[in-house]
């Protein structure tokens, strides 16, 4: 097991190097850079090659691509991800500001998603091909089909029309600063995001549970006279939950950086929105740093999930 873990860690670092190289190149393939983007709002009578050159020099963009790459990799190895072109703050500092928001939203979305998906998935499996199953599957398909921006927009319209509660888009409170204000602010995005993520998890859990419920050991458990509730929760769920656990882990990791739509709609200054903006304004250090960190989180979450498999399933541990 230890050898397996070490091998995976080494492989993960290779993946990180590969991703770092790709993002370094990918952002530079896009036309223009941060310096030239700044001129978009300027009277072009004042735009001269000298002005552009000076702006590029200030940002270190006058160096050759290989020079920039060597500098970037050297800094990255020493965990120096550079400074954002826009704010002149270190990427770590930028991430430190944005990550709590994304974690808060991500946790709430996962909380809502799984709070709904798990009971619904179980009910749907246990009541297979009966009215509750059809109704819940219909709901799942609706959730899958409805884009989060649509669900959120509809909710916003109702909140504004009846002035239900304040959505504090201006002050952006953290949960620990102003729990009530923060929950109100996150309420729509957490339900819109959670509702959307419910569908796939619920369907996965249902199919896994159906398969497990047909296993011999479940029949044995029932034959022993165990209560149906005990059979499902103690025996069936534990096995059916393994793939769901994988999905949970990866969902949470990707949620940190993928809530671009919800973060934009509700002015949540999280990682997803920052990532999107960094591409748009060609903030190379910020984009590169965020992608590397996100990749780090995802690959190591994946590793943690795999190791958790071993913990939950002795067969994996022994193999």
């Amino acid at each position, binding site marked *: 097991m230890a050898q397996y873990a070490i091998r995976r860690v080494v492989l993960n670092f290779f993946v990180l190097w590969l991703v770092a190289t790709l993002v370094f190149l990918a952002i530079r393939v*896009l*036309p*223009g*850079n941060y310096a*030239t*983007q*700044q*001129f*978009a*709002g*300027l*009277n*072009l*009578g*004042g*735009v*001269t*090659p*000298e*002005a*552009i050159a*000076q*702006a590029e020099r*200030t940002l270190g963009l006058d160096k050759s691509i290989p020079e920039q790459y060597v500098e970037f990799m050297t800094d990255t190895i020493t965990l120096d991800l550079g400074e954002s072109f*826009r*704010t*002149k703050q270190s990427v770590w500092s930028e991430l430190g500001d944005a990550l709590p928001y994304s974690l808060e939203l991500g946790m709430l979305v996962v909380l809502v998603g799984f709070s709904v998906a798990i009971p619904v998935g179980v009910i749907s499996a246990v009541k297979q091909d009966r009215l509750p199953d059809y109704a819940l599957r219909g709901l799942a398909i609706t959730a899958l089909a409805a884009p989060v921006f649509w669900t*959120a*927009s509809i909710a*916003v319209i109702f909140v*504004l029309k009846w002035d239900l509660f*304040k*959505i*504090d*888009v*201006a*002050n*952006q409170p953290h949960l620990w600063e102003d729990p009530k204000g923060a929950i109100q602010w996150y309420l729509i995005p957490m339900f819109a995001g959670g509702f959307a993520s419910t569908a796939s998890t619920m369907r996965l859990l249902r199919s896994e549970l159906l398969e497990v419920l047909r296993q011999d050991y479940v029949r044995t458990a029932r034959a022993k006279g165990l209560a149906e509730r005990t059979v499902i929760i103690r025996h069936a769920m534990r096995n059916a939950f393994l793939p769901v656990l994988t999905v949970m882990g990866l969902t949470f990791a990707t949620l940190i950086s993928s809530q671009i739509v919800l973060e*934009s*709609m*509700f*002015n949540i*200054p999280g990682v997803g*929105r920052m990532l999107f*903006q960094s591409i748009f*304004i*060609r903030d190379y250090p910020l984009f590169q740093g965020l992608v590397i960190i996100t990749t780090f989180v995802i690959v190591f979450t994946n590793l943690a999930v795999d190791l958790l498999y071993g913990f939950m399933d002795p067969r994996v541990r022994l193999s």
Partner: protein
Amino acid sequence: MADGRNYWQRRRLSRRSMLRGAAVGSAGVAGAVLIGCGDDDDPTATPTNGNGGDDPTATATAGNGGTDPTATPDGGGGDMMAVAGGVRSAISANVYDSVDAHQSVASPSVGVLSRAQSKILRFANPNTGELVGDLAETWEVPSASEVVLNLRPGVKWHDVGPGAENPAASPGRDLTVEDIVYNIERQQSGTYADGTETSFGRSSYWQKIANMEVSDNAIRMELTAPDVTFVQGLANEFNQIAQPELLEAVESTFSEISADKVLGTGPYIITEWIPGERISGVRNPAYYDSARPYLDAFVWGQAFEDPTAYRIGWEQKQVDTFTDPDPTTTQSIQAANADESYLSFSGVANTVAAYTNPNVEPWNDPRLVKAIDLSINRRQLIQQLHNGLGKVSGPVTWLQEAWALPEESFENRPGYRTDGAGREDDIAEANKLWQAAGGPDLGTIDWVVAETWASRSSWTITPELIAGGFNDAFQTDQFRGKTGPYGEIIPSWSAGNFEPFFAWIPNIEIPDARADMITYYKSDSPSNIWGINEPDRIDAPLTAALAELDDEAAFELVAGVQEFILENGQFGRHIAYNYIAPTLAWNYLHLTGPAPGEGWNFLSGSLGALDEWIDPNDPSFDGRESPTPTPV
């Protein structure tokens, strides 16, 4: 409330009334150089916005140059006494490039700095170019190549706040003529105090000064050549005056934004400046105009990336104004809150145009250039992209209203006609030219639309509209629309090897259009990237206009040049129109403008800072939570 539906159809300010002021100023009457003096009996001046969002408070105010606290035209309608106090809540653009206005290339930074730093002069009416004194209390223009500035006495640098606490600063001291001279000479030299070369955006403007003489509290400037537009440049938002001691200390780290690098003499003290997060300022109690600003403070939060967030912020009164690139969104939200809000209409200084490159084939063929110019359906684009909110522009945009050709003259002008038959004639003529220039043999022609334009939801169709318009006009399918980033367009523009493109470009420097005409059309101008070389028809009349103290005569010269440019298909610089942006405000907020419901066109940052006010007694104020500014 103003009736915005007819806003762009109103009669414009008469040229006679504007030029009257200019003539007085040109005669050398101190303090009265009013190039475009707003006439009390003619409330029809046209308006607009900042340079594409340089000032988050967008629309601005008129007032009598900020000297009479009892006269406050208000956007909310009616003549009301301004109420002092309150905190204005707005949003800010996210990209700030500099704490040094002289080194800034982007207007958002300048919009912030103009709250804290004064200029030598400022615009009382940016639409017309009417000037009032700022750090110079009065000024004289004895001749076309001389300007005399008389410093306002008793002006002091901020004595509190982060800038004042900077060890390099000298807080609270008196402003001197040497401070102003330092700011000018610094930009002329193009170097930092330690001799390091740098780039100051307005260096070429200041190099127009051949000699400066300082005496007591006056500065006499002698220009290298006659240029009556020079005086307006003193009010340019980029030409702010900062404290020399602090400038020297921070000039090499100008791009690292921080409130402690800003020290001015302006109406507000910047107490916090965190790009992408928050900007806050409080009223300068020692401002030279004790009645201004009306507000106690301002707080600009993070810009909303998405209209939904912005709408939530506005409807729940977390921010005071709302505007969306799609005017129908703004208008529909106003309709839903009709009793408590109003729309303020501002022309936008980003001029929309199609550009062809005469330096490369096939666009070096004048027939092709003319064909393109005739075939652009400007009025249809205004309808399709802006819900009809806009007006066609010629070489001088309608925003520079004292110098633009009369709007009526465009009704029957080829390429601009309003009647169907005239339009058909234009298309027929364009087709003839297209055929004669071998258009059908040119193969596929890509027409680039700037992606910052095309990415906006209501404008995503623009590439298809542009290409489709040409294809329809020339009965072909050769034109293909595509998007391209400004980051690619701008370097190719400055290098002179750009593809045909369609974009908005803020090409207005000051209200006096003579300066911009010289910049873009004179044969020896570095910005004449079209290589236009018409010594007799363009260079000579523009040079004469620049030295002409009689503005009526100058206008005739500029108008003649415009006519010539239009006859030649605008030489590839196919100016189309300037659109109008509605800003939605709660009734409690009194924006400023030349008339109720109208905003300024450009260069309005100083006016907004001084003259906006909040009425806590207005019914719409109910439920508004005042933001908390960062204290000094």
